[in-house]
């Protein structure tokens, strides 16, 4: 149990670090949103699951699983809201963008 929890903690932290690295490296807001809205909640969710495993207490375990579920539900939602707002506010796309079906501005 301890080993599984430890592995989950390290993998989750690595995903969080990768999300931040993606935010730093990708060329525009929309590609950065890809990194933040996928790797971020998975990393934090894995760590919350590790809490649920390591605590050995039912009340804490329920909170950990609940937090994990909440995170995977809300972060993509806020990512979508932010992408829509950025598009309507006219945030520029990266120059390497290949296809653009969006005509006009929202």
């Amino acid at each position: 149990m301890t080993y599984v929890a430890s592995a989950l903690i390290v993998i989750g932290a690595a995903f969080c670090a990768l999300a931040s690295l993606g935010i730093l490296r990708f060329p525009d807001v929309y590609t950065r949103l890809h990194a933040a809205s996928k790797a971020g909640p998975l990393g934090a969710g894995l760590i919350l699951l590790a809490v649920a495993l390591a605590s050995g207490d039912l009340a804490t375990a329920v909170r950990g699983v609940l937090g994990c579920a909440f995170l995977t539900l809300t972060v993509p939602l806020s990512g979508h809201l932010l992408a829509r707002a950025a598009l309507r506010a006219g945030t520029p796309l990266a120059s390497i963008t290949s296809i653009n079906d969006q005509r006009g501005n929202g």
Partner: protein
Amino acid sequence: MIELSTTIAMVLLGLAMAMTIIRIIVGPSLADRILGLDLLSTVSVAFIAVFAIRTGLYQNIDIAVALTLLAFLSTAAFARYLLPRWHRQ
């Protein structure tokens, strides 16, 4: 075992926070900064959870869950603020 893994995790999460803060400072547009704040709160949730495991103070999980809620609401509010229609009224 837990000691070692939480140490590694805290170093990784600290690096993640530093990179996110660089993006918040540099970020060319407002949307970049909002995105940075959103990810910073997600990383903070992870950090609080790791801290809870390391110290055995599992009450801290409540703080992490509340911070998840707060992060979603604040990003939604910032996204509303970013919409151009909002400024015109």
